[in-house]
């Protein structure tokens, strides 16, 4: 394994209903350090399942996911002990379509919960770090607000920095702007863009083709649980090969 491969996915399969539904049907791909990998494809093509498999929110039916040298689909870690998936999840931030902020906690508490309770960061340190992150996304003044008091765009920005507070090595985004009013899409994409420029490794499922073109360095096209085409944004959008991709692009562009 070379050093710049952060995640290696090998022949990943996820079946539902005893194999009747093949949400993932053999996906093989490497995610390198610094990649901004954008995943596109029609609805139901397995994009969410793929992303959620990466941190084992979905347990794959077969195949392997090697994250930072460890096959996290195995029951036992390299040391022979039971694999601690929570340890690996700390290194993978995830942002959801519906934000999933904790409604009973303030913005600051949302952000410090995992650092304090999982990483055992001292409370003051966690708070300072959270405030710094909030500052970066222009929300420091909302630290003591509750999620319900924020707009959708603000919520998603908080969700992003909440994940960043754990200092992950990779960030997974599952349609982060799909639940937003159009006027709020930009503010979230801007944060993601900045993150990409700062060198964060990212896997992004999105329908924002502008973002894919401008920020992504690789674009993956999925359909029917399979990875049908992969290439640079120029290749995928400029000269798509697979007819399914051509058809898909003609509909969304």
């Amino acid at each position, binding site marked *: 394994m070379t050093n710049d491969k952060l995640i290696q996915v090998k022949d990943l399969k996820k079946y539902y209903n005893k194999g009747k539904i093949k949400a993932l049907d053999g996906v093989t791909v490497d995610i390198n350090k610094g990649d901004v990998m954008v995943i596109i494809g029609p609805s139901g093509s397995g994009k969410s399942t793929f992303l959620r498999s990466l*941190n084992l*929110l979905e347990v794959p039916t077969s195949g392997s996911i090697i994250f930072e040298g460890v096959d996290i689909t195995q029951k036992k870690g390299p040391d022979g002990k039971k694999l601690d998936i*929570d*340890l690996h*999840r*700390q290194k*993978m*931030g*995830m942002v*959801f379509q*519906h934000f*999933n*902020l*904790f*409604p*009973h*906690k303030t913005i600051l508490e949302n952000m410090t*919960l*995992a650092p304090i*309770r*999982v*990483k055992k960061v001292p409370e003051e340190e966690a708070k300072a770090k959270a405030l710094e992150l909030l500052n970066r996304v222009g929300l420091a003044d909302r630290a003591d607000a*509750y*999620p*319900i*008091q924020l707009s959708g765009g603000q919520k998603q920005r908080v*969700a992003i920095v*909440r*994940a960043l507070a*754990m200092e992950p090595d990779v960030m997974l985004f599952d349609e982060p702007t799909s639940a937003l009013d159009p006027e709020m899409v930009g503010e979230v994409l801007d944060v993601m863009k900045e993150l990409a420029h700062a060198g964060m490794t990212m896997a992004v499922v999105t329908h924002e083709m502008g973002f894919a073109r401008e920020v992504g360095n690789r674009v993956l096209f999925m359909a029917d649980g399979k990875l049908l085409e992969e290439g640079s944004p120029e290749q995928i959008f400029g000269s798509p090969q697979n007819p399914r991709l051509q058809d898909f692009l003609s509909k969304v562009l």
Partner: protein
Amino acid sequence: MLTAQGFSKAFEYWQLFLQGVACTVSLSALTVIFGFILALFLAVCRMGKMKVLKALATAYVELFRATPMVVQIFIIFYVVFDGVKVLPGFKLFGFIRFERFFPAVVALSLNSGAYLSEIIRSGIQSIDGGQTEAARSLGLNAWKTMRFVVLPQAIKNILPAIANEFVTIIKESAICYTIGVQDIMSAVNAVKGATYRMGEALIIATALYFCLTYPTSKIIAHFERKMSVGDKR
């Protein structure tokens, strides 16, 4: 007929009533604590992946909800503890007979655990799965996710139902006088034995039970308002 004289006679036994209140309160408080712990355990079993535990917990809950309290308490006292023969006979606070009090706590806890577990289960299941996913993706393990993310929200949702169950426990505990627990109802019985009058004692008991249940529901309603802070705009 209720008479003023009857009341003043009944009041002569105020000490018994006072002891009865102390007994009912400690009985209910212990039941709430043990019942809640049992309920959490049952709820976790019923929602878990282990099929055997799931089936056992389900059977337990259905059984206890489908049979009368008085039958349960008699089985615990007369069968499980073999009357007063098994437990040591000493007095708590100088007047509560442990060998009768303890089986009552056990029976009430087993019963309310079944009811509370259903309340807790529905509360936990009412929380959006996205909450758990977000917590797990941040690296929280299953227990911490439950403790810091799911349970606080679930308990807020089910507080009215829990309050209702607490009040029910206080009221249902009155059945325990049938196995010789010296609660409020047993004070009524003692007064009846001594004075051949029951009406006045029953009125006093009514007032005492009300004084216990009404503030309980009010206090919980207060916490409910405090906890709903995240819902305010």
